[in-house]
């Protein structure tokens, strides 16, 4: 835990970390099934950070933050937040050859931005898999807005505005992912707003209860 903020006690932190671990394990296994490509998700990290420091935390992990490909998707349920899927600029071509396999679609002329569309579609599945498994375990439902996709863009501070206010804290989960034996590597950040702390605590309490 960074910043010495004690929103969660040690046991709750441990349980959250363990839940994320299980959720991402399930997500990786089922993703491999759904997209037919091997997926590795690294051990997830859990941090509670001030919203004003979020950018720095993301930049700590993502070295290519000034020019990256980004899929952003909001989700809402008892707890709400934003998911960011970030990977290096230039990998979008590999994404297309890896995921866009319907032969009849390959006659796109010069006219269509295939890369963006493929990133959106696959990003939506990657994000949906990880989020749904977490909320399954916490036994709460979640809905999504459609993804926004940018190619070769700088990850900017103002993306975070509007979802979070500066002095709030955010619960940040992140994991590294690798597709098809490291052909593409990137990061997934799930940033939950401060108001999701109470519902999370409640869900954890129910979980502890179920083992008594």
């Amino acid at each position: 835990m960074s910043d010495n903020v004690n929103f969660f006690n040690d046991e709750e932190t441990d349980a959250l970390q363990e839940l994320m671990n299980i959720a991402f394990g399930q997500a990786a296994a089922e993703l491999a099934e759904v997209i037919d490509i091997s997926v590795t998700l690294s051990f997830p990290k859990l941090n509670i950070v001030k919203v004003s420091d979020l950018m720095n935390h993301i930049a700590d992990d993502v070295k290519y933050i000034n020019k990256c490909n980004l899929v952003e998707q909001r989700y809402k349920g008892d707890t709400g937040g934003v998911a960011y899927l970030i990977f290096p600029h230039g990998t979008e071509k590999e994404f297309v050859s890896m995921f866009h396999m319907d032969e009849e679609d390959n006659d796109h002329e010069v006219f269509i931005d295939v890369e963006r569309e493929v990133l959106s579609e696959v990003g939506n599945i990657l994000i949906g898999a990880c989020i749904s498994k977490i909320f399954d375990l916490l036994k709460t439902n979640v809905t999504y807005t459609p993804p926004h996709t940018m190619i070769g863009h700088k990850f900017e501070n103002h993306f975070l505005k509007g979802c979070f206010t500066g002095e709030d804290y955010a619960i940040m989960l992140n994991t590294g992912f690798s597709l098809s034996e490291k052909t593409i590597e990137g990061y997934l950040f799930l940033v939950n707003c401060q108001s999701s702390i109470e519902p999370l605590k409640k869900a954890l309490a129910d979980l502890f209860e179920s083992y008594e």
Partner: protein
Amino acid sequence: MKGYSQILESINIGIVIIDKEFNIVEWNAWMANYSEKREDDVLGENIYKVFPELDRVCFNRGCKSVFSFGNLVFLSSKLHKFLFPFKLSGAYSASFEYMQQSCYLIPIKDENGETTSLMINVHDVTENAILEKHLKELSYVDGLTGVYNRRTFERRLVE
């Protein structure tokens, strides 16, 4: 319930609901109209049997994702053109042979949050696709001579 069925039948988008075995449980009037397949004839049938064209990566992957993760999947007309092959007639048929469609695959969950069926929403976006195609052509092709312009040449060079 009566009100809902009126909405379902009069709404200007295609609505199909399939169960986990991919059998059709709902087929609204819009679908019946464009597919020329009546609801009575397709209900209970496997959707791949009714439309073998659906057996393609984007649809199969999307359905798996909805049933596994309960998320919403969007299949863009820009990428996939259409899911259901509905032949166009009239003025639009000069630009496209088939109706251009943007489709959503949406989970339908029971009270336990379990995804039990999947709704396909089909939007007719042919008009937009024609406009977009026309705009792109304007920007890539020289209006006088009809050959690709310099911008297109430079773009191709980069690729």
